[in-house]
């Protein structure tokens, strides 16, 4: 409908000509020259109006309408001209007829309704929901019994306007819902983010941001420049001027920034290491500011520190191991007569060290603890002596008898104990009870007066005549470990039925 606007007022001649040409004598109104002066005047008035207007005259509300009203009729024009209201608009009679009759009867005055919804048929059989802002006024007419000759209709169709408004409202609602959804997503994100304009003023932030920097309400952040609050200090403790801030630089100049070696500060003054990414916000080629997303990397830093510690510990142990190996080789070379003997000695001692190392190996699945774990004395003895445990010819006789309470041994003590037990065992295998199939060793230990007391008793070996003339290396090493390292005592008894070694040292040295 374009008839609403002034420049488009249709030439009144179209309807005026139709009305002039019509043979009204064949209608209930009778010939035009017999009409009441009120009707004639009203028809002339509405013909000159740009608004959609109509007259419904007499008890049958015969319709005369102007050019503006024509589109409202749809296909019913021009058939509707001069026909009774009920014939033209049967579909609206239940709604509008009583109103017309009341006006005609003088029972009520004018009627006005905005966007009145009417279900009508004006294009063939098709039903449509149309809306009209309508005004019905009584037309004064002296000859009529009630003084009212008909109803003057002004009807502006608002179907499209209402539809547009409804669509607009729906899209506004959808937009609001979408905005709320987006907000929910941003606030549900684990990563913190905030946006700044080109001047560095915060324009937007999410809940993770507020939580991470310890700001309670969004209003405390929005509209403010936060560098001085959350980003004011370099990792070295020096002042961090806002002009140097990569976030503000990107907001000011565009581009991108990625930083993972700085700290953000909470309102309470505490700080945390962050990794952040800054991207320029462009709208149609124009820089609007920047968005900064960041994560708290405290845990990652801790893991890196832990890794550094582990590597340091590992490096220390490897170097130490080389030093010990160097000692093993040099010392073994001092007593070995042949390369074969040297090789055997070195291999045996390295094996003892390796076994001790394996026992105290830290649990690598628990990366938070690089420290060696304690292991039991019983376990150590079994490992060290395992090459001799089933060397018996019969395969049934148990050559090794171990008995004692559970004793936990620390890393250093474990290595030292492994070394001397290895020397005891190799000595027994070469000269003592383990050199013959029927021989065996009984090892017993107990804790007494804060001392660990351990007895090594060989039986069933070759009969010993006396103690050896010279001190072997094993004896030197054992003596050094027990006295020099453990601060304890060691005694050898070369009994005829087999060697017995008594050793004792403070229990606390076991924990080392």
């Amino acid at each position, binding site marked *: 409908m374009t008839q609403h606007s002034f420049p488009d007022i249709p030439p009144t001649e179209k309807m005026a000509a139709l009305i002039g040409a019509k043979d009204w004598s064949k209608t209930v109104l009778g010939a035009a020259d017999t009409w009441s002066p009120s009707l004639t005047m009203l028809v002339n008035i509405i013909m000159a109006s740009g608004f959609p207007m109509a007259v419904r005259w007499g008890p049958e509300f015969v319709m005369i309408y102007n050019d503006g009203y024509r589109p409202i009729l749809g296909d019913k024009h021009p058939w509707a001209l001069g026909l009774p209201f009920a014939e033209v608009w049967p579909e609206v009679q239940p709604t509008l007829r009583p109103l017309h009759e009341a006006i005609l009867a003088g029972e009520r005055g004018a009627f006005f309704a905005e966007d009145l919804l009417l279900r009508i048929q004006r294009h063939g059989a098709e039903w449509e929901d149309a809306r009209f802002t309508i005004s019905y006024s009584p037309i004064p007419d002296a000859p009529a019994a009630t003084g009212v000759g008909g109803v003057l209709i002004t009807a502006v169709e608002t179907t499209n306007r209402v539809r547009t408004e409804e669509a607009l409202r729906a899209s506004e609602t959808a937009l609001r819902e979408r905005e709320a959804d987006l907000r929910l997503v941003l606030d549900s994100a684990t990563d913190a983010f905030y946006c700044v304009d080109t001047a560095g003023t915060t324009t937007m932030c999410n809940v993770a941001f507020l939580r991470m920097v310890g700001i309670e309400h969004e209003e405390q952040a929005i509209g403010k420049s936060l560098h001085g609050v959350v980003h004011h200090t370099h990792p070295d403790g020096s002042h961090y001027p806002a002009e140097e801030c990569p976030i503000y630089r990107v907001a000011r100049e565009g581009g991108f920034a990625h930083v993972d070696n700085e700290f953000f500060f909470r309102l309470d003054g505490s700080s945390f290491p962050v990794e952040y990414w800054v991207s320029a916000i462009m709208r149609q080629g124009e820089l609007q500011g920047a968005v900064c997303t960041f994560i708290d990397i405290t845990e990652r830093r801790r893991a890196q520190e832990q890794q550094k510690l582990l590597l*340091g510990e590992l*490096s*220390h*142990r490897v*170097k*130490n191991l*080389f*030093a*010990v*190996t*160097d*000692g*093993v080789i*040099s*010392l073994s070379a*001092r007593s070995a007569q042949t390369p074969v003997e040297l090789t055997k000695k070195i291999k045996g*001692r390295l094996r003892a060290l390796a076994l001790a190392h394996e026992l105290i190996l830290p649990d690598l699945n628990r990366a938070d603890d690089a420290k060696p774990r304690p292991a039991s004395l019983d376990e150590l003895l079994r490992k060290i002596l395992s090459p001799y445990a089933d060397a018996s010819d019969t395969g049934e006789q148990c050559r090794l008898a171990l008995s004692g309470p559970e004793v936990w041994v620390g890393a*250093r*003590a474990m290595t*030292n104990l492994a*070394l001397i037990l290895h020397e005891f065992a190799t000595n027994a295998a070469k000269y003592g009870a383990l050199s013959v199939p029927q021989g065996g060793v009984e090892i017993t230990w107990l804790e007494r007066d804060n001392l660990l007391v351990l007895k090594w008793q060989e039986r069933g070996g070759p009969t010993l005549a006396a103690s050896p003339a010279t001190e072997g290396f094993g004896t*030197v*090493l054992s003596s*050094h*470990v027990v006295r*020099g*390292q453990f*601060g304890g005592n060691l005694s050898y008894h070369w009994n005829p039925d087999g060697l017995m070694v008594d050793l004792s040292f403070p229990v606390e*040295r076991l924990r*080392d």
Partner: protein
Amino acid sequence: MLNHSAILVVEDEPYIALELQAAIEEAGGEVVGPVGSVSAALALLQDCVEIAAAVLDVQLSDREVTPVAQALTALGVPVVFQSAKNLPSDLKRHCPDAVFYKKPVAAEALLETLVEMTQRHGPSA
């Protein structure tokens, strides 16, 4: 070479300690120790042995060797450190003249240093 100089050896790895002892004895020195702990080393110093030089491991079984190093420095005894780790800064401060070797150490270099030290600081000098 070492002319019966008394060399204190503080080292908690038995093989390293015993090898050091053998090497020093081969070079004509006399070993005090070897011991593997701060408490044992301090106990040896209490016995008032005349010590010409000392070889100290840094991280011992019970703790860092610092108290031993301090006591030796107070007595004017020259010190050689050997460690798999870097020398802690407080040890450097306490013993500015000490020589530091990182493990593993070549026995020859260590002996050479000990000879120099005993000739410079020994009773005959």
